[in-house]
């Protein structure tokens, strides 16, 4: 995605907000992706056991959270002083979030 600069009324760059919104969408989607990968591949499943009593869920969520925070940090560093077009960014983030919710639903996840 290459967001274009947009004007704003208050003078506060939109980049920081756009980075937070998009990172949240990506982070939520990654929860589903890591869960799906751990469910489909035994090798990944065993790798994802960071804390044995919790099992693969510990690694799935830790990896997704780490990726979310890293994405947020990188996007924020790149966009914080820029005005970013909010419409495409928030739409992409919302699509990723909805996909994340759907892909964690077992009957849908089992289609893959």
């Amino acid at each position, binding site marked *: 995605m290459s967001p274009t600069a947009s004007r704003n009324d*208050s003078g*506060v760059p939109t980049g920081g907000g756009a980075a937070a*919104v998009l990172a949240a969408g990506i982070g939520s989607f990654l929860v589903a992706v890591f869960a799906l990968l751990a469910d489909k591949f035994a090798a990944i499943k065993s790798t994802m056991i960071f804390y044995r009593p*919790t099992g693969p869920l510990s690694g799935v*969520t830790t990896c997704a959270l780490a990726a*979310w925070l890293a994405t947020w940090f990188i996007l924020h560093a790149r966009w914080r002083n820029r005005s970013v077009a909010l419409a495409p960014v928030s739409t992409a983030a*919302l699509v990723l979030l909805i996909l*994340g919710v759907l892909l964690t*639903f077992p009957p849908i996840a089992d289609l893959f």
Partner: protein
Amino acid sequence: MEITTRSLLTLMHGVGFGALYLMACSGALVELYRRYGAHNAAPPSTRDEVFLRTYLTAMAIVAWLAVLTGAYIIYPWYRAAPPSGTVDLAAFPQRLLLASPSTSGWHSIGMEWKEHVAWMAPICITMAAAVEFQYGHHLKSYPQLRNAILRFVWISLLAAAVAGFFGAMINKNAPVEGGTTIHLVQGGRP
């Protein structure tokens, strides 16, 4: 009247944090809509801003406490494997659910969905709190950003509702029990 430590902690996870988060979501949605809506001509006061920042931060803390206690305290008890030859599965909720076709779906669909989708709630609300901190009353000038936050809070409410519903139903069919028994009140004679 007695309760076990595992029941008490499960109650704290589900009611203390989960249900509290669900209730708080409606407040956040109303406040975000009311204070930053285009229909509201007056800019939010500093007091309003501080209130909303505090409120969203508290929600984020509650959401993180809900998922972390769920994943690292309750879930290990739920998924504990019984020693071979165990007949009474009451202390092993996951195995108890899977032992019967009439309850196995509570694990294979309910818990499998809940344990992952619940994490989207703290991610969404942390984002909402961070944006509120960053923009404050300027959010009024960015309806697209405000709408994005509102949608994320709506979906965090949905995610928390899914987790709450399945958590309650799973605990009804196969309660997490065990640990020390705490005597709350001495009951009267029947």
